[in-house]
């Protein structure tokens, strides 16, 4: 009996991981580059981080992005939880399959199409594009992810728990908040984290639906790169990677903690 990975396994992992993470590692390393030239190593320095925090345009964009991500993630989580409850609890109703496939459709729909259709909607309704349009667009985008995460947890949730609460004198709303919600909370939090990070790094939909004064960070970085890469971009990208990675890992950990009862 051989235990542990074979040479082939190790090679596969190194190649796969290298393919995925080498560019990111390079970007992180070069964000600490002294040199103004992005591709030439000139020694370690944090000067680009310092200059980044004096770049008001970038900081303003980062602030818009965080606000959009926060509000849209919260909205998407609430709506997604409600949709998941409907899908899991309502049993069989006419059009259930249609409804659930429609909830999942944005998962596989090209973002360009989602962005374009939202743009057409906003234009035809006559809404001025800005913070709120990006926020709504991101809610649309992340809603389905939130639904999937919460639904996965609800399926394994014993409905008798909520019935027991009602039987013991709790009205339906209290039974939900006192019993169901605390038990699905890790999944709800994971859904929020996922929605937050998805909104944070979205470029395509934001560029369709944002307007003047509501430039998000990905849009700002993208347009800056077109004019030539400044090491400041490396620095802010590193910060963004850190934030997204934290969110994704936290969402994963929260979800794992519930799946395996800690004993």
């Amino acid at each position, binding site marked *: 009996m051989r235990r542990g990975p074979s040479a082939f396994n190790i090679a596969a992992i190194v190649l796969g991981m290298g393919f995925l993470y080498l560019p990111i590692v390079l970007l992180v390393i070069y964000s600490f580059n002294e040199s103004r030239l992005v591709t030439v190593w000139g020694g370690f320095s944090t000067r680009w981080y310092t200059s980044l925090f004096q770049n008001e345009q970038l900081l303003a964009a980062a602030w818009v992005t965080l606000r959009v991500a926060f509000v849209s993630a919260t909205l998407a989580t609430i709506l997604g939880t409600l949709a998941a409850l409907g899908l899991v609890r309502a049993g069989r109703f006419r059009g259930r399959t249609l409804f659930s496939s429609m909830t999942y459709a944005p998962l596989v729909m090209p973002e360009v199409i989602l962005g374009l259709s939202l743009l057409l909607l906003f234009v035809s309704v006559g809404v001025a594009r800005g913070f709120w349009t990006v926020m709504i667009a991101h809610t649309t985008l992340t809603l389905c992810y939130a639904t999937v995460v919460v639904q996965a947890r609800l399926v394994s949730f014993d409905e008798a728990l909520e019935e027991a609460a009602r039987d013991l*004198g709790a009205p339906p709303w209290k039974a939900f908040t006192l019993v169901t919600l605390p038990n699905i909370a890790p999944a709800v939090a994971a859904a929020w984290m996922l929605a937050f990070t998805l909104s944070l790094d979205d470029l395509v939909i934001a560029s369709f639906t944002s307007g003047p004064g509501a430039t998000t960070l990905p849009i700002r970085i993208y347009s800056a790169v077109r004019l030539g890469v400044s090491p400041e971009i490396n620095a802010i990208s590193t910060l963004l990677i850190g934030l997204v990675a934290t969110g994704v890992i936290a969402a994963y950990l929260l979800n794992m903690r519930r799946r395996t009862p800690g*004993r």
Partner: protein
Amino acid sequence: MNGKPRLNIGAVRSSFAPWADPSAKPLVRFDQVTKRFGSETAVDAVSLDIYEGEFFALLGPSGCGKSTLMRMLAGFETPDLGRITLGGEDLAGRPPHLRPVNMMFQSYALFPHLTVAQNIAFGLRQQKKPKDEIAARVDEMLALVRLEGLAHRKPDQLSGGQKQRVALARAIAPKPRMLLLDEPLGALDRKLREETQFELMALQQRLGMTFLIVTHDQEEAMITADRIAVMRAGQLAQIGRPAEVYEAPNSRYVADFIGDVNLFEAKVTEDDGDIIRLVSPEAPDGLEAIEDDEIALGSTAWLAVRPEKMRVHLDPPPSGPNRLEGTVADIGYLGDWTTYLVELPGGRTIRAARANAARVVDRPVDWDDKVWLTFAPDSAVVLTR
């Protein structure tokens, strides 16, 4: 056959029989209650009275509608037809949280994010009781189910038996008018289940609370209940004390569902008021049973005889009615009991059971032995359906 049993049968709490008192008011009354799920009728025009202080069992195979009946009382299902009243009050339209009944769920449904004490306090919190009163009641409940040391454990740190007791304490704590138990012992192992059956009965006596238990386990129902309602396909097949249901079943279904039974299809040839005589190709010497009710001569009836009422003889007994002849096809030794499967000449197998009252037997019955089976006329029940 539903009248007062003429024979004195079984162990009974004879002082307690409110259902025999025409002036007694039932605590719960199901009045022609029907529930359909789609095209399936889960509960079919069931009428049933349950009295204050009674331990009542709904017994039947899975899918017979017993759980649906209980869930309608708790308020989780709505009857399509009929009425359910509690203490004379119609429960229609009252949501579960406003009904003075509590349920112990089959899965226990303990709240995993709350401690044992918080679980037990849940119902009391909903009643907005003062804090010190809740604490006192929780302590009282913990003592009642002997879980004093475990107040601060979470449910996933408890054994199956402990969870069962927490669920019981949680349902009793708010002092419901009636406690509903949905297969309460199904998840326990055999030894623990037997103990808990007696505990449950003692608890019910001590609290004086009305218990309604739903179970598919006839032993559980027989041990715990004052009365049993045997259900079949959404209808009540028979209601009676455990001994009545066992010793005086009203149909082949009930006779067969509760315990083991040997059924002989036969033709009625003689009825002299007390003793009915029947003929069956399986019993060459004829059959005889004591039966009050009149049964039309020439009609088909079934004679039901419990295995433990069959006597096994190795030497031919004097010829006469209720005598069968066969060979031992199989022997099941259970320790306390031995079951003999005796094959009749016609090919059918009859069960006979014998208590192993002595350790040593002179002439044990062996495989392929030729044996005779006899039974007394008052051990047999004549069934017409």
